[in-house]
């Protein structure tokens, strides 16, 4: 049987008590009314009537003492005197007469009275509610029936008693009802906290467990004890739940980290494969050159062509230099993220100025106009690496704008919430959007005729990645210029 059921047997105890109290009240009221109408009131009436008859009998005996067969009108005064005296008696409780009226009817065969005195009446007008009793009046030594007395007994005492008893009954019933109501209310009040506790617990799931609300001051010790036990249980459950949640979060984090690690490993593996392939391919090129010119060198030496020999040796030296440069830059690339300089606050403006100074030869040679936006922000990172980033971007820009009629480079900054962005824009030939990703690849040179190893932008991307930032390119190609941007996150304390 669940607590959801609201049927009688499943109802809350206080509902049952309320219903029981109502039922009890109805039964008691019904019993009270039945008892009054069918038992008490009739019994009182019979009792009062019996008393009236008994008094009538006594009166008849008194009258019998003054009556005698053959009595005449002269003796009637004694009878009247007895009747009047009987009318005088008063009930001490009501201060009203016991007997309201007496009617005496003589047997005309027994007495010698004139017809107008055969019936004698004394007292007040007959009352409708009086107890009327007819009693025989015997008289004389022979106990002959001389008259029949009709006695009107007052019902005042009965009515007073009846009203009094009824009032008392009503009062007691009302008092009983009030007491029952109070009892029901008190029990309901005592049990209400149990309902609140159960509702509180039912409304919550394992994730939102909380201590029970405070109880009223009137709550009983037993209910307080239950609450304390439940609070303790809830507290333990809460702790257990928190522990489970923490473990779950930790597992989640670990899984995420593992997944990221796997992704990173896979990415590095792929990168390593590409790197291996690219390195082997690009290193092979100067080796082939060297090998080829060594063969030519043998031939030229045998022929004694010194001029060709010098040319061959220069070619071999150039190829060796190229190879050296490639290896140096590869070594540098491998150091990024592995060998880390301490981070520090770096003023981007100073960094740009330093770079502009470093590439002043190319800038001046190509007559490139360089503009730097005011109020450059500061960034936090490896200064040496960041210098390489800016150097690569500005140097590339200066290199590729040389074909433009009025070459221009603009360096601007954005200080956003949580990150700083640096844009390096030029009005060079631009890069077709199809190659925007490719430019950051190792040894990927869009124009093989240009100088460089193709490692520069890979190196830049690697540095920005290591700093937790992003790098991207915006360009429509077709001589529309290009804009390289990189972002660097602000340190947490500054970002907040």
């Amino acid at each position, binding site marked *: 049987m669940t607590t959801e059921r609201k049927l009688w047997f499943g109802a809350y105890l206080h509902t049952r008590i309320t219903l029981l109290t109502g039922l009890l009240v109805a039964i008691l009221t019904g019993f009270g009314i039945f008892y009054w109408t069918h038992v008490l009131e009739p019994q009182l009436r019979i009792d009062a009537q019996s008393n009236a008859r*008994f008094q009538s009998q006594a009166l008849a005996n008194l009258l019998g003492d003054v009556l005698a067969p053959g009595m005449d009108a002269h003796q009637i005064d004694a009878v009247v005197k007895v009747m009047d005296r009987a009318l005088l008696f008063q009930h001490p409780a009501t201060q009203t007469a016991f007997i309201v009226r007496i009617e005496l009817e003589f047997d005309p065969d027994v007495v010698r009275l004139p017809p107008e005195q055969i019936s004698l009446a004394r007292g007040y007008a007959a009352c409708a509610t009086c107890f009327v009793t007819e009693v025989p009046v015997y008289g004389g030594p022979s106990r*002959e029936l001389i008259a029949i007395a009709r006695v009107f007994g007052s019902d005042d005492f009965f009515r007073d008693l009846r009203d009094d008893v009824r009032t008392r009954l009503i009062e007691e019933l009302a008092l009983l009802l009030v007491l029952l109501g109070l009892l029901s209310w008190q029990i309901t009040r005592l049990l209400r906290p149990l309902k609140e506790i159960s509702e509180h617990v039912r409304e919550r799931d394992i994730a939102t467990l909380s201590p029970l609300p405070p109880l009223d001051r009137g709550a009983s010790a037993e209910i307080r004890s239950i609450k304390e036990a439940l609070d303790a249980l809830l507290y333990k459950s809460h702790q257990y739940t928190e522990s489970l949640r923490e473990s779950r979060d930790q597992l989640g984090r670990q899984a995420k980290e593992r997944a990221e690690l796997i992704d990173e490993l896979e990415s590095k593996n792929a990168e390593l494969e590409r790197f291996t392939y690219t390195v082997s391919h690009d290193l092979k090129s100067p080796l082939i050159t060297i090998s080829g010119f060594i063969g030519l060198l043998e031939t030229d030496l045998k022929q004694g062509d010194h001029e060709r020999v010098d040319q061959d040796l220069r070619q071999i030296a150039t190829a060796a230099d190229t190879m050296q440069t490639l290896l140096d830059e590869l070594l540098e690339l491998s150091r990024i993220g592995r060998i880390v300089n301490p981070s520090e606050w770096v003023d981007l403006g100073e960094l740009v100025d330093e770079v502009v100074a470093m590439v002043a030869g190319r800038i001046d040679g190509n007559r490139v106009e360089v503009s730097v936006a005011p109020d450059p922000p500061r960034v936090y990172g490896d200064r040496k690496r960041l210098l390489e980033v800016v150097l690569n971007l500005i140097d590339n820009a200066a290199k590729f704008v040389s074909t433009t009629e009025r070459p221009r480079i603009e360096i601007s900054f954005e200080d956003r919430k949580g990150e700083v962005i640096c844009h390096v824009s030029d009005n060079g030939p631009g890069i077709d959007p199809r190659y925007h990703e490719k430019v950051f690849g190792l040894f990927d040179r869009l124009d093989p005729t240009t100088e460089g190893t193709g490692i520069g932008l890979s190196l830049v991307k690697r540095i920005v990645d290591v700093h937790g930032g992003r790098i991207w390119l915006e360009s429509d190609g077709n001589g529309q210029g290009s804009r390289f941007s990189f972002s660097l996150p602000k340190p947490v304390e500054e970002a907040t």
Partner: protein
Amino acid sequence: MSPNERLLGIAIVLWLWSAGLGAREVESLRINAGIDLFPSFLAADLDIADKTDKDGALLLLLVHWDAEQEVEHLAAGLAEVGHIRDLPVRVRTVSVEALAEYRDARPAGMFVTERLPAEALARILAFGRDAGVLVISPHKGDVEQGASGGIWVGDRILPFVNMRALDAGGVRLKPFFLRIAKTL
């Protein structure tokens, strides 16, 4: 103690009947009340004047079974009445066995002084019926058994009349008396 006071006393005691009086005491009280009402019954007999004996007196028979001594006491009390309807009263006690001796004595009325076996009561009732006189028995249940009259005891003590017995014996009572009596 006047007769009325005595009747009131009897009424009070009978009223308290249920308060623990024994059957014997109640019976005794009923007999006393009945003997008080016996003259009233006789006075109410419309033909009482015709029921005198050869001496012109009303012969009243107190019939008993074996309690002769107590009956004498009742007889003495009844004899004090002296006259009923101006007719002198003569009281005799008689046993059930000796009742036949009074067949020609013209009794005016009979009173059963003690509770009798059914057969004995039947003999008395038959005697009274044949004599055309009232047979009054104060014992509970005897009126229902055929006695002409008795007493009804409640919150009052009233004459109790068996109309069929009256008719069977040819006894006529005054309507005034019957008005107040309980009838069967």
